């Protein structure tokens, strides 16, 4: 079956809107803390600025360091392609494609970690170790969340979990779906290095998680990394939006509009979180992640318990 045009359009929307979600988040945070803040389009300007610059490469790095940004974007795009962004069917779908999603994201991270270790810097080594610690728990949480959806919709493909069967499951499964959505939001903040897990605005290397790994990247390489983390955030946000508003039986135009609005609303939600809580101490982060993952676990139990 050929993928529908709506799937391509939805992917295009996500690709275009992704940096804007970050812009909305930082603008929301600025307004809530009574500052004017940067323009919403600032993240686009930053990307353009970086793309026009040259890259500085350390003598100690190898090809791994060069390859990581490109592979990172590619794997994030793959993750985007297995999700039914238009609320119906994904560009690539097969039974068990949910595993492809999780590991496409993990693969990108793995390359970034390799690139960080490639520099031989003690900072980046520390960042890599922190990033992997966070990622290993996030991965568990993601699988529990998708497990819930799979049990609810009786499919193992994301196109089913987030497509028409989801809308059908809403009337009976809404408590589990809502819990999953909340858990996913908490995991998204960790996965995409936002407060309270990481602070994208800090300049203090010793406290960073994700940012410290990419200290040595510059110019277009850095632009690719920044773009792909924005994209990753939007992809997970798109899943949350679909959970809260199943779009399987909406008209195509409405479905796409809901997607775009939902992504921007996620940006607002992130901004609100960042304007109201402080960052966690590093040793407390696993606790936070475990709490988020346990929401996935409870919703899974709920679904399995109530299903005949």
């Amino acid at each position, binding site marked *: 079956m050929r993928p529908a045009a709506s799937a391509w359009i939805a992917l295009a929307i996500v690709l275009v809107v992704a940096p804007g979600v970050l812009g909305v988040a930082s603008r929301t*945070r600025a307004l809530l803390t*009574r500052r004017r803040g940067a323009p919403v389009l600032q993240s686009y300007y930053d990307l353009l600025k970086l793309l026009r610059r040259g890259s500085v490469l350390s003598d100690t790095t190898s090809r791994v360091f060069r390859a990581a940004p490109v592979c990172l974007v590619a794997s994030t795009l793959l993750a985007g392609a297995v999700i039914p962004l238009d609320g119906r069917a994904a560009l690539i779908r097969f039974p068990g494609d949910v595993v492809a999603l999780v590991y496409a994201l993990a693969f990108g991270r793995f390359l970034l970690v390799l690139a960080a270790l490639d520099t031989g810097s*003690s900072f980046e080594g520390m960042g890599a170790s922190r990033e992997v610690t966070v990622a290993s728990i996030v991965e568990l949480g993601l699988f529990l969340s998708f497990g819930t959806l799979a049990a609810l919709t009786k499919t193992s493909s994301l196109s089913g979990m987030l497509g028409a069967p989801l809308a059908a499951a809403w009337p009976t499964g809404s408590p589990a779906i809502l819990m999953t959505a909340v858990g996913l939001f908490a995991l998204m903040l960790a996965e995409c290095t936002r407060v309270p897990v990481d602070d994208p605005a800090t300049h203090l*290397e010793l*406290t960073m998680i994700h940012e410290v790994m990419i200290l040595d990247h510059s110019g277009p390489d850095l632009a690719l990394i920044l773009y792909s983390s924005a994209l990753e955030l939007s992809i997970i946000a798109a899943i949350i939006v679909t959970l809260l508003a199943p779009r399987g039986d909406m008209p195509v135009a409405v479905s796409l509009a809901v997607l775009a609005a939902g992504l921007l609303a996620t940006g607002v939600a992130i901004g609100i979180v960042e304007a109201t809580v*402080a960052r966690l101490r*590093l040793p*407390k982060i696993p606790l936070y992640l475990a709490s988020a993952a346990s929401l996935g676990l409870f919703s899974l139990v709920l679904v399995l318990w109530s299903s005949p």
Partner: protein
Amino acid sequence: MTPAPGVRIGNRRSAPVAGIPVLGLTEFGAQIEAATAGGWRIVTLFGTPETADELRLICVMAHDARGDLAVTSALVGRDYPAISARSRQAGRFECEIAEQCAARPHGHPRLRAVRRHAPDHAPSHWHGGSADALANGLTTIGGDEVHEVAVGPVHAGIIEPGHFRFNAHGEEILSLDVVLGYQHRGVERLLECTPRDRAMYVAESIAGDSVIAHASAYCGAIEALGRSHKSPRAQAIRGIALELERLANHIGDLGALSGDVAYQPAASYFGRMRGDCLNLLMAMSGNRYGRGLVRPGGTTFDIDAGTARDIEHGMARLGDDFRATADLFFGASTVQSRLEGVGVVSAATCIAEGFVGIVARACDVPRDVRHDHPYGVFRFAQIPVSTAWAGDVYARALVRRLEVQRSIAFIAEQVHSLPGGETRAPCGALARNEFVVALEEGWRGEVAHAVLTDATGSVRRHKVTDPSFHNWPAIEVAMPGNQISDFPLSNKSFNLSYAGHDL
């Protein structure tokens, strides 16, 4: 009661050099040892060449609870048994003496470079620098699982240069060594050699965020030697400026702490309030940091009725805004969990090492020059000493909060009832062969300027001790056992000066 180590002096009261006892080294060491054990602490300990082949060590000590200051001295040759072998507080000062005066203290428990410069106060016959001889004294810890992390001297923010070397096991800090000296400008030499009107600018540039504190301490010393009597009005204006400086820096620090824990609302509100305080200093002196305000004999600018009204209104509004934001910041559970139990300095360590200022007050060691050795306006208008007991980042933030509230009340009261009179009195030539110590409670803690004049009435030795010099070792003491990711937050809670230390 422990007897005073040497002759009693007062804060900003000059005394003849001849009155300072000159002891043998053994007796000198014993006196310092007995005094530090009996509640005294070293304010400053420095060397000045006495003859071509002899160095005079001068030690100023304070007993804060009794409000006493005392000075004693000894003559030493180039090689001498270290005093720090008997009294821990002398340790860092003896490193400084070894570097500045090319002396060699034998048996020093940890002789290391302080600023890495050639000796500039050595007796003329002592050739050969000791700068190369003194290493940075970095700790090395063996083992495959221990890794070293080197931070700086180029800082990621826009603050000053300093190098931090960690030994860490995973995320846990095993040891921290702070290497400073990148900002060394030869301040003491400049203060001794340049004419008085130019030396004033040097004094104002010792630490850019403590302009009023250093300028007032410098002027306090010069005025005592120049027999100048400030008018009550000038004293009040200096007091207001000093407290405005404290407000700006304390509020700025609270904002920076909020920023470091990514608590955005408080960071931006505090940041705005800091600006308001600096703007009031600007209204008073034409400079946001108060440069050009404090001069020997008084102040260059008066507070006219309009400015007084602005300051009074400013304090009323700041009081309300600050209370609201501080409640927000200190009340947030996510903030509390970041600040509590991090970077602890115990009261026992503080007393043993002689820490001063916020660091001391945050572990329930009430040391405040404004209260213990009052001077100027603080003799008439007392500011209660603010303390906390936990000694962690939270306690240091809390002390700042309390001090902000008290400084606001002080400034409001002072501008409301400014005494009349001129703001500037004449300041004559310096008295000959006299010694004076001027202490000032800057926002970080005790700023000390000690001045010694010679037979012609020119400055023979000008010793500056910034609170940062006392307190940098506190970070090295506080960090082991903490998370390496908590270091920037801890460091911010101390917020020590690099320039003030490096001189």
